[in-house]
């Protein structure tokens, strides 16, 4: 029986996966993908079925564990934000070569407009690169429905399926008609070693087999009811995923429309659209993935426009306004922007330990004008903004330590890295090992708030293990310190920082105090329980 539930796009994906017989979800938190795994962690059916759902250390460990579950014959889901695809790319691309046994669906949640990200990369390129099918839902209902199709498709073609989301759909709620769950797969490990042992001889065979699968993948996309062609006259529009909604919102009557939600790009449908139209406008969120392919498909003589031609903005997310403008429709604001307005950027919470860390660091570094501070990804990136203005870089997960090391190698002194606990276990431990092996003159501040705070307080993989990890990686005992970042301890903290800046080797200072948000949440739960 289908019942209606009010769900975020992310939640609809999660429920779709559970109802498709999911056995495990593997993920590292990252906006806008976090809510998928959180939903599964809190769902009664998942508990009843023993669906594996703990947070992973990073996207690569997540992808590999999911591939292992697929190897064992069960259905597995991997979720991440788009830049997580860079972290797990090795496993993802090679999973296309080995193929899968149990259905394996990889959700990459892109963030056009970079609401909470460092770039606007479009994950569909990864799907094409790995030669695997890609699904792209247009609304919350399709999020739920496509998940079951994705698992079925994955098992039929024996490949991982990439499901591409965007922030706006991930974090928007609508009523979704949901069905009944199907049973989980039985344990049935794969016995075909030549598929899974990627020695060059096997890998060559497997790669050829992957190439041989491509015509079938294309035929499936051509026949998919998700790729819907409605012929009209004049202008032809290709609308991918969520772009379909913006087009429908503003659609002028009579144009031809091809909705694309399954890739490889259905070339025959694109040609049919071109034949029925005078020109084609490609509307897609993210990068001009389809626009480039359509241009190549139709040749230089056929007019194709979109983000590459400037008919739609080259950067930023789509919205009903820029899509309406692409159709030449009038609209826009009635009221002018207000005069009495100031921007209100996000900031570190009052009472947050990171604040005390930056206060101490700034106080000490006032005496070291040559110092450079390499930041990392997390709440503490906000240390770049006033009043602290405390960091000189923030690039990718773990880069603080390794960039500080490289800068120290080049002669920068003092070189300081500021990294959070969850980011450290995600991608900073190997960086620290490199620094130890070179005895680089860096001071690492591992600001430990006992959680993955930025994404809403998920468990952090290394909690209570950081001293042991640093010692095991070779940091010397006398250059490893744990302090409690509170204003009353400022004298001790600044003294420790100063001493370690003066030491020309690797030191790690761990300011350790629980995140204000998770602490408040625990206190609320405690009060509610009383």
């Amino acid at each position, binding site marked *: 029986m289908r019942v*209606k539930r*009010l769900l*975020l796009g992310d939640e609809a994906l999660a429920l779709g996966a559970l109802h498709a017989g999911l056995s495990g979800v593997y993920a590292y938190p990252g*906006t*806008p993908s*976090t*809510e998928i795994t959180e939903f599964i962690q809190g769902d009664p059916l998942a508990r009843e079925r023993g669906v594996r759902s703990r947070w992973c250390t990073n996207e690569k460990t997540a992808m590999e564990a999911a591939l292992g579950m697929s190897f064992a014959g069960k259905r597995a889901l991997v979720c991440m934000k788009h830049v997580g695809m860079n972290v797990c790319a090795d496993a993802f691309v090679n999973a296309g070569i080995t193929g899968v046994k149990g259905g394996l669906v990889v959700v990459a949640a892109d963030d056009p407009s970079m*609401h*909470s990200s460092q770039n606007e990369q479009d994950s569909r390129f990864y799907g094409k690169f790995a030669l695997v099918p890609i699904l792209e839902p247009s609304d919350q209902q399709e999020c739920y429905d496509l998940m079951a199709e994705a698992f079925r498709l994955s098992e039929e073609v024996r490949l991982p399926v990439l499901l591409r989301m965007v922030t*706006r*759909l991930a*974090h*928007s*709620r*609508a*009523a979704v008609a949901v069905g009944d769950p199907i049973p989980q797969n039985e344990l049935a490990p794969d016995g075909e070693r030549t598929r899974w042992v990627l020695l060059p001889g096997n890998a060559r065979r497997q790669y050829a087999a992957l190439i041989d699968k491509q015509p079938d993948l294309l035929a499936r996309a051509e026949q998919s009811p998700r790729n819907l062609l409605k012929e009209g006259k004049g202008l032809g529009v290709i609308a991918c995923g*969520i772009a379909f*909604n*913006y087009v*429908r*919102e*503003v659609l002028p009557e009579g144009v031809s429309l091809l909705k694309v939600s399954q890739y490889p790009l259905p070339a025959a449908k694109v040609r049919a659209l071109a034949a029925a139209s005078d020109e084609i406008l490609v509307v897609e969120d993210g990068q001009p993935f389809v626009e480039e392919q359509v241009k190549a498909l139709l040749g230089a003589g056929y007019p194709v426009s979109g983000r590459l031609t400037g008919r739609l903005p080259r950067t930023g997310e789509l*919205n*009903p*306004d820029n899509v*309406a403008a692409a159709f030449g429709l009038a*609209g*826009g*604001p*009635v*009221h*002018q*922007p*207000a*005069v*009495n*307005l*100031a*921007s*209100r*950027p*996000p*900031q*570190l*919470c009052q009472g947050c330990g990171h604040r005390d860390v930056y206060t101490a660091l700034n106080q000490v570094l006032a005496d070291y004008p040559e110092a450079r501070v390499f930041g990392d990804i997390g*709440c503490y990136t*906000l240390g770049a903004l*006033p009043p602290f203005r405390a960091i000189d870089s923030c690039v990718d997960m773990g880069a603080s330590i390794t960039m500080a090391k490289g800068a120290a190698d080049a002669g920068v002194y003092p070189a300081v890295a500021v990294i959070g606990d969850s980011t450290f276990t995600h991608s900073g431990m190997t960086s620290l090992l490199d620094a130890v092996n070179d005895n680089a003159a860096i001071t690492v501040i591992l600001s430990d708030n006992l959680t993955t705070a*930025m*994404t*809403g307080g998920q468990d952090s993989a290394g909690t209570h293990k950081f001293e042991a990890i640093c010692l095991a990686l070779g940091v010397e005992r006398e250059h490893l310190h744990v302090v409690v970042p509170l204003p009353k301890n400022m004298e001790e903290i600044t003294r420790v920082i100063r001493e370690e800046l003066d030491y020309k080797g690797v030191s790690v200072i761990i300011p350790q105090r629980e995140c204000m948000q998770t602490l408040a949440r625990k206190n609320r739960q405690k009060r*509610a329980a009383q």
Partner: protein
Amino acid sequence: MKTDIKLAGVGGQGILSIATVLGEAATEAGLQLKQAEVHGMSQRGGDVQSDLRLSTDPIFSDQIPLGGADLILSMEPMEALRYLPYLGPEGAVVTSSKPFVNIPNYPDETALLAELDSLPKVTRMDIDAVAKELMAPRSANMVLLGMAARHLAILAPEDLRNAIRTVFARKGDKVVEDNLKAFDAGYEGIQ
């Protein structure tokens, strides 16, 4: 019939609870609904907004177009002004009149309120003061929802009261009562 609402505030002020109550009421009333939220980084004391679209017919875009909002509903007066370009020709603004100052360059309060009052349809109230007076300081957002109910032809006040009962039920009777009281104060306050 359709109603597009721009919800605004500062991270942590509880605009998502307003959205949840409106969503529950709309679902019970058999309306179509889309609600785009902001999660992640901006929640840390920065400006937050949510697009809520209610309609008797299918809704396509998750985002409200510029000049399309029937209502700006804001927990903070400057945040109400931030979304003026989204306000439609007949649109109303319902907002708290009490500034939340967590930035050094917050505009002059008198000038800000004067700019608000220059708009054609504005209702503002010190919702924190009202909630405090009711001994329900955490229910300021429901005072605001009560004020908004006067502008929501698509939903009856009783639909919203029922939704408050459902949404806050698991937090206990006291929380439900506080929120209903706050809602009624907002609703009566702007007669």
